[in-house]
Every structure is written in C-alpha cells, then in structure tokens.
C-alpha cells in the first residue's frame, strides 16, 4: 500500500540551526512532504556595536568582543543559530534606534522578513531536485507581514487558510491563529473567531476523515498544551513554592477536532508539551521546540490512505 512520509516541526523562532537541520532531515529521512506549524520568527535582536578597534555585544549575559571579520562572522552565526537577529551598528545608530521605538519595530520587521526570505530560498534550492514540497505556515507570534515572504516559490507553500493535496489521498489545511495569550501576540484572537476560522478550514476539505490539519495552537486540555500559569505581570505563578501549570490550548480547536475527526492534526505553540494524543480517531501531535539550544525537534509521520501507519518524535 502506498505510504506518504511527512516531516513536521514548528516554533523555530528564528533559529537558523533548527531550520537547516529540518531541511537536512527531509533528505536524511526521505520525507515526501515537509510541514512547518508556525512561530518561525525570532524574539530578539542583538546589537553588535562597532567600537572602532572591534565590536562589542552581549549574548546570554556574556560579553563578546570580536575583533576580526572572522570572529564577527562567527558571532553573527552563533546569534543566528539561537534564533536572534544580529545587527551591526555604529554607536550613534544604537542611540538613534533606542530613541525611536517605531524605527526599532521597523528594523525588527526587516530583519525577520530578510531571514524568512533567506530560508525560503534555501528551501527552494534544497528541495527542488528531490521534488519535495514544504508547507510553511506562520504562527501567532509572527507578524502578518511575514506571509508575503513565503509567497512566490515552486516548492514552498503557505497552507494558512488554504487547502493543498499532500498526495492523491490526503488534503492539508492550516491555521496560524491562536487563542489570546498573555503577550497579545500578532495573531492572537478570541475563541469565537478561532471557531469561525476553523469551520472555514473544515469546509475546505473534501475528505475530512483523511485530512491533515496544521493548527498552530493545540487542543485544550489535551496534554499537548500544558504550560506554567502567568500572572498579570507575566510572571510565573508559584504556589507553595511550586510553579502552577495549566492547560493553555484552545477549546475551539478541541471541539472542531472532536466534531470533524480529521486523520491527523499537527500543533506547536507550547514548546514544553511535545507528545501525541488520540482525540477520537484523530491523532494530534505537538513536536515541541528547543530552538534556543539549536536542537531540532520534529515528528516523522507515515500516512497510509485511511490511517496513520506510524509516527515518531525525533530530536537532534
């Protein structure tokens, strides 16, 4: 019986090492299709200040002072690998950027778009010859302007709100939105809006029972959505000396899965809750993320026509 092998990961958060390993894994494991489940942009820019004789930056509380072009390039690569954006600035540029938050935001957006485009070009070059298709979706942490950076490639497609055929039997639809988070991210939305968009997604499907749905936020109380509870100041809530954990997934996502019962749903969003769970006949997977360590976490899934033949979570 014909089998399609998917490779799925999410929450790269700008980590170049993660993304490059993900592409490497496509070849290594002979995947037929790749799916990325969102939150692809990084969380911070690291200013590298030109000091005249060299450069100065602080990474993970450690002062770095590259003095040669090779050392500077190595530092830039380290910063890029952990998901941050290195920006080399003169001292007056540092002052100007810090004085103008709007300018800071624009610079951030430029850096994110530039890296995404680099990634898409790398993916196109890598996947053209084996003719593997990458379905690359944003997540709630990614600005709306990121979608444009994913367009215009033959082997890279954005499944957010759209339907693609992975093979002759299995459709793929995606949804980048998430329920409201404490950080009020770019694509956070209310549960009722999420439910509406999920209904629209489901309506795109010809054969839901064989469909794959990439939904950034995991279903509520599924074990794929457990994370620490935060207070109004975004501080972790402790009680009796311990961190309180809570389910942060979406009830709307869970209700939709229970109602539509697709073959497979793929999630991200909650980095610390990798795993898989059955909701009725649907297999739901969260591959987790350790982007800051440059460790790739992903899931390999073998699909047969009417069932998930097997799956495994990998990291490396």
């Amino acid at each position, binding site marked *: 019986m014909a089998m399609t092998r998917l490779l799925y990961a999410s929450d790269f958060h700008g980590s170049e090492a993660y993304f490059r390993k993900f592409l490497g894994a496509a070849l290594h*494991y002979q995947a037929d299709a790749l799916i990325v489940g969102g939150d692809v942009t990084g969380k911070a820019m690291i200013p590298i200040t030109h000091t005249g004789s060299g450069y100065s930056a602080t990474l993970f509380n450690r002062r770095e002072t590259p003095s040669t072009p090779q050392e500077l390039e190595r530092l830039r690569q380290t910063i890029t690998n952990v998901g941050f954006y290195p920006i080399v600035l003169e001292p007056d540029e540092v002052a100007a950027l810090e004085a103008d938050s709007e300018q800071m935001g624009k610079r951030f957006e430029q850096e994110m778009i530039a890296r995404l485009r680099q990634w898409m070009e790398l993916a196109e070059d890598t996947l053209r010859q084996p003719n593997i298709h990458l379905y690359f979706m944003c997540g709630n942490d990614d600005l709306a302007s990121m979608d444009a950076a994913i367009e215009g490639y033959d082997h890279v497609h954005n499944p957010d709100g759209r339907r693609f055929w992975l093979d002759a039997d299995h459709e793929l639809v995606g949804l980048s939105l998430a329920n409201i988070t404490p950080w009020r991210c770019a694509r956070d939305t209310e549960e009722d809006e999420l439910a509406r968009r999920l209904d629209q997604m489901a309506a795109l499907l010809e054969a839901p029972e064989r469909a794959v749905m990439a939904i950034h936020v995991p279903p509520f109380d599924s074990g794929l959505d457990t994370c620490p509870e935060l207070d109004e100041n975004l501080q972790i809530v402790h009680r009796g000396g311990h961190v309180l954990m809570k389910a942060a997934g979406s009830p709307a996502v869970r209700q939709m899965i229970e109602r539509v019962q697709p073959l497979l749903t793929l999630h991200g969003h909650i980095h610390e809750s990798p795993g898989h769970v059955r909701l009725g006949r649907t297999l739901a997977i969260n591959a987790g993320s350790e982007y800051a360590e440059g460790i790739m976490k992903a899931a390999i899934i073998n699909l047969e026509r009417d069932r998930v033949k097997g799956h495994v979570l990998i990291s490396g």
Partner: protein
Amino acid sequence: MTEMVAAAGGERKLYARKSSGLIRTIGVFGAMVFGVHCISLSSSGLIPYSWIAGVWPGSSIIGVLTVAAFFCLFHAYTYATIGATMPRSAADYTLGSRTLSPPLAFAASWTLVIFSAMVAGALIAWIPTVALPTLTRSMGIVFSNPSLVSFAGWSASRTGIIVIGTICALITFGTMVLPTRSIVRILEVGFFLGLAAWAILYFQLGTASSSEFPAAWDRFMGSGSYEGRIALAQQFGMVINPNVAVMTLAGLIMGFWVFYGYYIPTFFAGEVKQAENTLLAGSWASLIVTWAIFVLGALLLQRLVPLEWIAAESYLSQSPDAVAAGVTAMPYITFYAAVVSPSFPLVLFVAFAWIYTLINLAQTYFFYCSRIIFAWSFDRLIPEFVSWVHPKLHSPIWAIVIITIVAEIGIIDAATGSVMGAQLNFVFFAVITMFVPVIAMTLFPYLKPDLYQNASAAVRRRLGPVPVITIVGAITLTYMTWMVIASFLYPAVGGGINSTKLGVLALLVISGLVVFYGARAYRMRKEGIDIGWTFQSVPPV
C-alpha cells in the same frame, strides 16, 4: 511589541519582543529536597555510626564522611552537566542514546530502573527489618515495655517484613498516584520532619554530659555493659586502626553508600527550571546538607563517648560470631539519643519522622523510575499504555503499578534471604549502569561537537584547551571504576558479589537489549518507523 532588556549595570544587551519567556517547575530547593530524601535522612543517617564505625574501627567518622562527600561532588557535577546538556526526562539515557549507543544506553537505563524499583522494595523492607525494630526495641528497652520488644522481633521476621512491607508499598503507591505537586509537598513535609527529628537527636545528645552516658547505657543494656564494650568487641576480633590512609580508603568506598541519591533530579531534568544551574546547586546542596547533618551528629555523639566505643558497638552488631553468641548491639544514633534522654514523646516523634522519611526515600525511587519510563515511552521503546496519565490525578498510574509490583518483589526478596541482595549490591549495580552516560558526557565535546557548541555556557566551561566536563568526567569514571573494584575487594561493603548476582546483572542488561531490538523490529514491520531515527543527529544543510 519590542522592549529593551538591560544587563546589570545598565548596559543594553538585547532588544527583545515581549513574547519571550519559558519555564520549568522544580527549583533549587525542590531539587535539594529530592536529593536529600534519596540520600535519606533516616537510612543513611544511621550508616555512619552503625556501619562505617565498625567496618573501619578507629577511622574518624567525620573524616570518612568528608572524603566520601568530596568525591561525590565530582560525580554530582558530571550528572548535573548531563542534565544541563539534555534537560529532559531521563537525561542520562537521552544523552547516552544520542551520543554513544542507543541499545547500550537503553539497556543501562532498563537495568537501573528495574534494580531501582527492587531497591525501593528493599528500602521499604528496611522499615520492618531495621527501622521499626530499632525504634520499637529502643522504646521497649527504654520504657520497659516487653510487648514493644516482642513486636520488634515479629517485625523483622519473614511474615512481618512481607506484611508491613506490603502495607508500606501500598502507602507509597497511594501517595505516588497523587498529582506531582502533592508528591512534592509530601516530600517537603518529610524534609522538615527529618530536620526536626535530627534537631531532637541533637538536643538529646547535646544536652547530656559525657559522665551521664555510661550509667544511662547500663540502665538499659545491663550493668557493666558500657565499660566492657570495647574489650568485648576486641574479643570478637575488632582491631582499632586510626590510620589516616585507612580512613581515606574508607571514604573512597563509602561515598555512594552514604550519599547515593543527590543526583537524581537529572532523571527528571525536564521538570527542573534553569537546569544548567539548578541541577548542580540542588545536588551539591543536598550533599552538603546531609554531610553537615551527619557530621554534626558525629560531633555530638563523640562528645559523649569515644570513637573507639562507637566502633566497638558497631562492630558487635556486624560480627556474625558476636551475634551468634547472643550479644545484643544497638549502634544506632537514635538509640544513643534515647538512652540519654528517654522522653517518650520525643522518641515517638523521631520514630514517626524516621518511618515517614523512609517512605519518602522509596517515593523518590518511584518518582525517578516513572520519569525514566516516560522517556522510553516517548521514544516509543515500550507500549504507550505504560505512560498513560490519569486525567484527574495527572499521574502515570500504570508506570507506578509496574514499579510497585517490582518493589514488592524486592520486599519479598529481602524477606526471604535476599537472593538478589538488592540493597547491599545497589551501589555496584548502579555504578555499572552509570558508565554509559558518564562516558557519553566525558566524550560529548568530541563526539557531538555541534551540540556541544550550542550547549549552555555551564556545559561549555573549559580549563585551558580541555572542556571541564571531560576532566571532571574522567575523575568520575576513575572513581566509579574504583567503586566496582572495591565491591569485589571489600565483601563487607560490596555485600559479597557472587556469580548469581553477576548473572542477575547480566540477565537484566541482556533483557534490556532484547526489549530494545524487539521494539525496533516490531515498529519497523508494523509502522514503517525505525526507532533508530530517534537517536540520530541530523546534519544541517
């Protein structure tokens, strides 16, 4: 949605979006509590005075404890670094399987879990075998209650061990199926109870004068007993040897026997916050705290009686000839404290705290075994149902049931003559299983340079051109090799390792390999998935 995050001193270090932030659960205090309980304030709390003193008569108890703890610091560093390198459940298995050899790492982990569960049973059996009889006999003697002395005898009988052990195993199971937060609270209560019990012992020993002790002892153990103790021990072969070299040797052997357990948060590193700092701080803190508690006990005890006398009492309890001759020896610090200050409420409180913390000890074994089983299940080496989590209790019921069953086997083994010698050979078995992860960690910078370069700063510390972890790992490996050799050289410590016990070890390792290759073949055929993929590093394009 951008904010500046300033380093200390106001220097700007990065421009972060507000959506950054991540987290884990167990902090330094929690890690220390787990470590202290796995070392055990009760069972290990007796060892320095009841065992070490008699095995090496004349050696300084404090010196032995200090040398032992010192070498454990290196081992603790190695395991903390393993957890910092792979901050997830069963970090040792995860590192070994990703760095060295998946089947060997699994076989080592499998052996550790089965044997740990057996040891948990053997430790539970300690309650009816040693803890209850010691305490009830002490109370019976001190308060002239023959039925308590008689209960002590029944408790240590085969029936008593199985009945009381099974009850305690069920209590442990009942507490382990509670949510993790409740388990941690139970352990924290035990930590403070244990501290309170030691404070009572300090009070009892510290407020008595050395001139009171002989009379107090004789009152309970018979007239002239105190005075003749050293001579009696010498009559049965005790030789006092206050040689520093012997003391150092004893310390080198006793490290894991006294302090084993400080490093167990590495087994659940996935639940530890800031693993790179917490694991080291927690394990070192548990080592230092227990060292300080036991050393203070030794100091106060030696205020009352000479070291040679403590050695004689300990020696008599271990000498088969003395036991056969009907000599009753009570080399327990709890008994020493009780005879100088025979207060029923205080003795009862210490007894309660002792038993509570013994159950805590078994709980830590159950806890880390269940996390390791989780890791296997996550790699899909064992059936998924084993890691099923109860929806209300949020605990892995089946994993805990399996551990409880194996622990019950450990109890029965202890009651029926200890065929496997689970408790006495635990250090040997544990050390054997440690070789895979410790070798993996020592060579990690060279075997996995890409992961090493991306590891946390704590993992990447260097001493000149050599990674610190390679140096410390080499010291740890040397120490572990010595522990294996010492298990054979010193039967009094190694518990008499024989071909049966080595066969059991081989059987456990081979069964682990069979499970690994069996799971691999099954999943390849059934699912088209090679579980070997789980352990591979993928080169970036």
